[in-house]
């Protein structure tokens, strides 16, 4: 038996030195460690030995087997090392991901905040008439209050009635409020987002096309305190739980009382962040104007055939570009509509 083991060992050493390829190594492995190998054959012969010899000899065989296995494995390992050399310092693959337009993201976030409060989202049309864009909103013809709403008029070829007046591109999203109130009975709670148009020369803060979100509620017992509550809830969901709101009296023909609403500066925290001196966003006033609102004027309810003695409501409107610019520190409104890939890809759906 001892001779047999020595023989196997010697042959293995010889064979091992002569191998040159991976196949040779595989063959070597089969020859010396395979099921039909000589070494395995020795095990079957062990039954002929005495129990003492069997123990001793079994140990010898296993030792040799282990030695051969280790030798082959070390060879395989070094081979693998060579073959599978991989440079992990190479840069990662550049994966591009598609992005939603940042204005749409912001618009959707505004809408969904109000949806969570029980509002429905309804989009109006961009092509409107004078009745819905002005008259029904208590903005009379030839009145200075129209000056704030310079408007693109449409040459539509469609018939114009005295009530509807000329066709135009809506200069705000409030006409959808009128359309809703004309067609529905209260209680109503709607937000209406979309494109609006005004003939402003384009510069860093003006665009002849931009986006607004309009919202309104009509029901019994709706109060100015309710308006404040809903907008505060919105601001805290949208800008962060610590923001404050400031309501300033203002004038809109379609609301009474009317207010402009400022949010405490989201950059310097309304002066709270001591590290920011001379806040470039709020100009150290601590406040940023974000929306206009008020209690719906009884004339507007009346024009929509809603009993203003029974129902009252509030309405608000905000510019999506402004909110997006404040939130992301975007300094030029034209970036939204140039669609430079380097701009678009900075924002992803949050």
């Amino acid at each position: 038996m001892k001779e047999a083991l020595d023989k196997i060992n010697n042959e293995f050493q010889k064979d091992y030195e002569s191998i040159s390829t991976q196949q040779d190594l595989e063959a070597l492995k089969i020859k010396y460690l395979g099921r039909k190998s000589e070494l395995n054959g020795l095990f079957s012969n062990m039954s002929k030995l005495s129990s003492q010899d069997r123990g001793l000899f079994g140990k010898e065989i296993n030792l040799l087997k282990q030695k051969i296995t280790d030798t082959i494995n070390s060879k395989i390992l070094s081979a693998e090392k060579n073959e599978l050399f991989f440079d992990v310092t190479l840069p990662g693959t550049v994966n591009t991901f598609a992005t939603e337009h940042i204005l749409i993201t912001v618009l959707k976030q505004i809408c969904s905040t109000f949806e969570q409060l029980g509002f429905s989202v309804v989009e109006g049309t961009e092509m409107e008439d004078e009745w819905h864009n002005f008259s029904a909103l208590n903005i009379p013809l030839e009145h200075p209050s129209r000056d704030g709403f310079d408007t693109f008029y449409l040459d539509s070829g469609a018939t114009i009635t005295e009530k509807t007046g000329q066709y135009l591109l809506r200069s705000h999203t409030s006409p959808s409020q009128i359309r809703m109130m004309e067609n529905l009975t209260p209680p109503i709670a709607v937000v209406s987002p979309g494109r609006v148009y005004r003939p402003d020369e384009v510069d860093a803060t003006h665009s002849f096309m931009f986006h607004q979100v309009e919202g309104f509620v009509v029901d019994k017992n709706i109060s100015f305190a309710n308006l404040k509550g809903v907008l505060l809830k919105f601001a805290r969901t949208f800008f962060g739980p610590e923001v404050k709101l400031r309501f300033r009296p203002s004038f809109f023909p379609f609301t009474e009382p009317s207010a402009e609403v400022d949010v405490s500066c989201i950059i310097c925290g309304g002066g709270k962040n001591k590290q920011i001196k001379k806040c470039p966003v709020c100009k150290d006033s601590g406040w940023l104007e974000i929306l206009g609102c008020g209690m719906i004027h009884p004339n507007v309810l009346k024009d929509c055939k809603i009993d203003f003695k029974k129902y009252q409501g509030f309405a608000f409107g905000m510019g999506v570009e402004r909110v997006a610019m404040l939130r992301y520190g975007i300094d030029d409104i034209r970036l939204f509509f140039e669609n430079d890939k380097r701009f678009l890809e900075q924002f992803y759906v949050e």
Partner: protein
Amino acid sequence: MKVGLNFIKEFFKVNVTAEELAEKLTMSGLAVESLKKEKNDWIFDIEVTSNRYDWLSVMGIAGEAAAALGKNVAINYPKVVSLSKYKDKKISIEDIKDCSVYTGRYMQNVRVGRSPGWLCERIRGCGVKEINTVVDIANYCMLKWGNPLHVFDADKIKGNIHIRRAKSGERFFGLDEKERRLATDNLVIADDEKIIALAGVMGAENTKVDDKTKNIFIEGAVFDPVCIRRSRRAVGIDTDSSYRFERKVNPAYLQFAVQQTVNLLVQLCGAKDMGACQTGRKKSIQHKKIILEFNKVREYLGAQLTDNIIKNILAGLGCDVKKHSVGKINVLVPQHRLDLLREVDLYEEIARFYGYDNIPTDIPVISNTVNREGLYHFKNKLRSLMITLGFSEIISYSFEDQKLLEELGYSRFVQISNPLRSQENVMRPTLVTGMSKVFAYNFNRGIKNCKFFEIADLYFRAKTITEKPFLAVGIAGGREEFLLLKGVFNNIVKYFNLDKIIFENKPINNFTNALVLKINGKELGFIGKLDSSAAKILGISSDFFFMQINVGLLMDIEKTKKYSKFTQFPAVSRDISVIMKNNTQFSIVENIIMQSGAEYISGIEIMEFYKGDKIEDDALACTVRVHYCAKDRTLRSDEVDHMDNAIRDKLLQCSDLQLR
């Protein structure tokens, strides 16, 4: 409106700093846009909302400031002296609707010079340039009372005064030294020979007060707001005077403004008052009486205001408050507040002076009868699918250049009557122009690998005008991008669980290799490669593929999804290599396979295309893998072979096909 703190101090003692006053004004609705120190005065620049004409006078602003600080203003109304009637000039008003009252004051021996320092400071603080004593005094009184006045050199007026509409084509040479042609929209002041002022807007050069002026004629009038608005818009001028007339002026203060002007002219210029003349009638102001219910105020504002707080606020505003009945009061509004007409107007005043910030916040229970609108949410679903498929969203302008669209063969547009630029004069009927401009923009900056989509309305003009939402998808690159778009469309079909789609090979204007997408006989949209002439017009240098889909139609045919069982048994496949000769389309091969009666075909897959040796130029070799599967068992090999052979036989029957 600009105003200096020293001017405000003429009306009451201001005991807070300028900054504190600015804050108070802002929070009561007079938004102070800037506050600047100038010499020994503070200049407030205040944004005046269009409902408050009374804030276009320093008196009005002072009144508001005093009320906000809980103080009262002391107004020195000048004693109106009615001297003997000035009879030399007759005043005639053509239409009393244009001018309800016109008063004139004749003064002699005026010394025109430079105004004293205090007067210059007052008007300069309001942003008005000093000119000479006479003009400066008139401006000072306008700023103080809110009523614009005009002073003529009386010796340059020939005959009587006529307030009339201009004749079409009449010329007017204004104080701004510009000549304008007038039309019937313009109201003018004329003497017997010529136009001497564009009423309510600007005086004429021909009757200007200058250093040589001796005798003057002071005009004080109330013109119709709409009339003045139309007139000044027609000639494109906006002056301090027209701005005030357009927003209404208070006739009650007219006599004070005129009288103070006269008094100051006597005092500062040594002029002699020679009497007044007047035509028309000062409309008597009806003091509006509003019945206010305390509980209604509390309910509307949602604030627990006591009856006393309400009464005190109204009294502070100058209202006369008397008890009406239990829980109600009669409120008589002051004569300078013509804007207070109904209860809600008083609610606002109460809220303003109580402080908007003092009203509590209270989230209501929102009830709603309005249904969730499908379109908005459908568009968002479509949007997220496109993003998942690797396309980024763009937003392009809804406007387009009519000329460009006509070059591309479009006609019938919704036109914009007053476009800013001719390149943006119609509403777009296609999304391809906006999309290709974005590609061109990015290409020109060396940005490649663009895959974009946009969801936006298109605008159509037929008998009526309509707008409908569409999806546009664009990609530039090799011809395989066409198949990418086709694949995207298949994803859309799958995502919205649509019925079978038919791709129809049909020419589309501006596109080559176009496919029209049809479902249930309706055209849903198209896919195509922009043809070279359109690409040239749109400034695109590489191959550009485009898809446009009607989103409204897509939404109408969306079907809800249900779970459908899939087989647990493995599929078996067989490959078929076929040579398609004479430019035979793949759809022929596909149809033969699918219609070959092999009921167990679960799908086909193209493994490779081959073109090369042994294949003719107008032929293409293709290896198709056909998958077979049964719902209830594993198919036997011989069954599959049988079906495979049947397909091969069918393919061979077509003379343009050859098996390899």
